[in-house]
């Protein structure tokens, strides 16, 4: 069995078509992307006992909010701590483990719903499922980077676009299944968890079976690496542990963290924000449409911006994210004040596309700076920035907003300060990106170390 999962077993032959790898990566990312649609379960989970309406013994929304938060924390932790392991065992074993964790997490949560034990949901979806998210996120991305050395950005964009698209599948699928299973005695969440957990397990296993790694020294047909490497793109490799000793790792950590925090500024409260900033002009349905539009731009941006970074260069692409993001965030309160809803929506959509682009361009940026050999493990460690932003971002934004409202600021105006703070965070990100340069010579691995591998 261990042979079946081994790297040797999944090393492709020289004629292997590399275009079979992106769908294998997508088969995993489209599943784990469901995490961003977990909120569709929140309202039904508040009436598991009462069914038609919530009873005093039912779970509160604040209690349920921890499930998603735990999943994001364990996404970062598992990706960070399993970094070395996933580089050692290869993508098939990692993706299969991710399938077991993510599918198993759903099944354990189903038991938790049936027995009304919240800790089973925390451990099931939050901890075990979160580990599935982390392992499933990183492994296909680093594999794709190795298959597409000529289009790293496009390759990572394809996979990470799947993560954005996963919520678009997960949300309507969950709603359809809950409607199908609900009755006078059940809200249908446990049954939906069982079906979705099984479907996601199967799909992720298919991805793990189809994944392949390129043979050593493989290059795409007709592609010749530039004799003189481009600026800020190395052909050498930095070891996973050594990467943590470079300032570049921490600058990239901040770049990701700030970009994600700023994006969450809009994404987390888009529906309420647009209704309050255009009082009376936006219905509840239209606000839900606004959230849908942002999701589409979030997904599309992951592919478009990351692909563009192959031509613009990674550093320049992040300059665009931070400069344009700062400008657009600063303009949003003005558009709201003028009642210019078209420009408001267009700006928010572009901001969201760059939020998505920030996620998908970062693995290619890492590969450019640290080389491809340990990029999966290094990417895993960098994802702690996402976890941090996922927790701190909403806390920061909600705290500032509530504080202002308590001080007597009108609800619509309370967003102005929040949006300016987001613009400020992006300016700091701009400076971090400005400080990025090539890794110092001493951090690169020697040729013999690359050949023999270093523990």
């Amino acid at each position, binding site marked *: 069995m261990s042979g079946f999962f081994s790297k040797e077993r999944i090393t492709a032959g020289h004629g292997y078509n590399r275009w*079979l790898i992106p769908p294998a990566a997508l088969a995993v990312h489209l599943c784990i992307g469901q995490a961003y649609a977990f909120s569709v379960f929140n309202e039904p989970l508040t009436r598991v006992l009462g069914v038609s309406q919530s009873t005093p013994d039912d779970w509160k929304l604040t209690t349920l909010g921890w499930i998603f938060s735990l999943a994001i924390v364990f996404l970062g932790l598992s990706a960070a701590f399993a970094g070395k392991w996933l580089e050692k065992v290869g993508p098939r074993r990692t993706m299969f483990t991710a399938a077991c964790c993510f599918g198993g997490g759903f099944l354990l949560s189903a038991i938790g719903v049936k027995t009304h034990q919240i800790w089973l949901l925390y451990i099931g979806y939050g901890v075990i499922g979160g580990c599935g998210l982390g392992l499933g996120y990183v492994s296909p991305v680093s594999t794709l980077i190795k298959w597409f050395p000529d289009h790293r950005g496009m390759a990572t964009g394809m996979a990470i676009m799947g993560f954005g698209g996963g919520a678009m599948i997960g949300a309507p699928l969950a709603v359809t299944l809950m409607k199908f299973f609900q009755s006078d005695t059940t809200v249908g969440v446990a049954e939906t968890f069982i079906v979705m957990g099984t479907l996601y397990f199967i799909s992720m296993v298919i991805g793990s079976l189809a994944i392949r790694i390129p043979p050593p020294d493989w290059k795409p047909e007709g592609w010749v690496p530039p004799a003189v490497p481009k600026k800020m793109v190395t052909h050498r490799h930095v070891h996973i542990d050594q990467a943590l000793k470079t300032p570049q790792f921490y600058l990239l950590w901040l770049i990701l963290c700030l970009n994600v925090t700023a994006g969450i500024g809009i994404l987390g409260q888009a529906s309420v924000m647009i209704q309050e900033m255009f009082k009376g002009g936006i219905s509840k349905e239209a606000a839900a449409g606004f959230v849908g539009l942002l999701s589409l731009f979030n997904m599309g941006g992951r592919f478009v911006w990351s692909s563009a970074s192959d031509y613009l260069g990674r550093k320049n692409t992040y300059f665009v994210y931070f400069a344009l993001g700062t400008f657009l965030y600063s303009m949003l309160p003005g558009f709201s004040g003028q009642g210019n809803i078209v420009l408001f929506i267009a700006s928010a959509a572009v901001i969201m596309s760059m939020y998505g682009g920030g996620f998908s361009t970062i693995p290619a940026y890492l590969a450019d700076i640290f080389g491809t050999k340990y990029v999966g493990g290094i990417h895993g460690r960098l994802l702690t920035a996402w976890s941090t932003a996922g927790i701190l971002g909403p806390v920061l934004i909600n705290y500032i907003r509530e504080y202002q409202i308590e001080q007597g600021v009108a609800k619509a105006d309370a967003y102005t300060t929040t949006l300016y703070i987001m613009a400020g965070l992006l300016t700091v990100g701009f400076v971090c990106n400005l400080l990025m340069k090539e890794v110092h010579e001493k951090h690169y691995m020697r040729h013999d170390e690359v050949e023999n591998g270093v523990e």
Partner: protein
Amino acid sequence: MENSENSHAKSHPFLLVLFWAYVLIPLGWGVFQTLKKAMALFH
């Protein structure tokens, strides 16, 4: 390389189309559902 599942295999174009369809059809469905929801913004 002898133990590899693909040491002699070349991928069939049909397999390629099938595998891409396997991921793009659900993704297309999800995008369509989201677009339907987003249209409410323009009504």
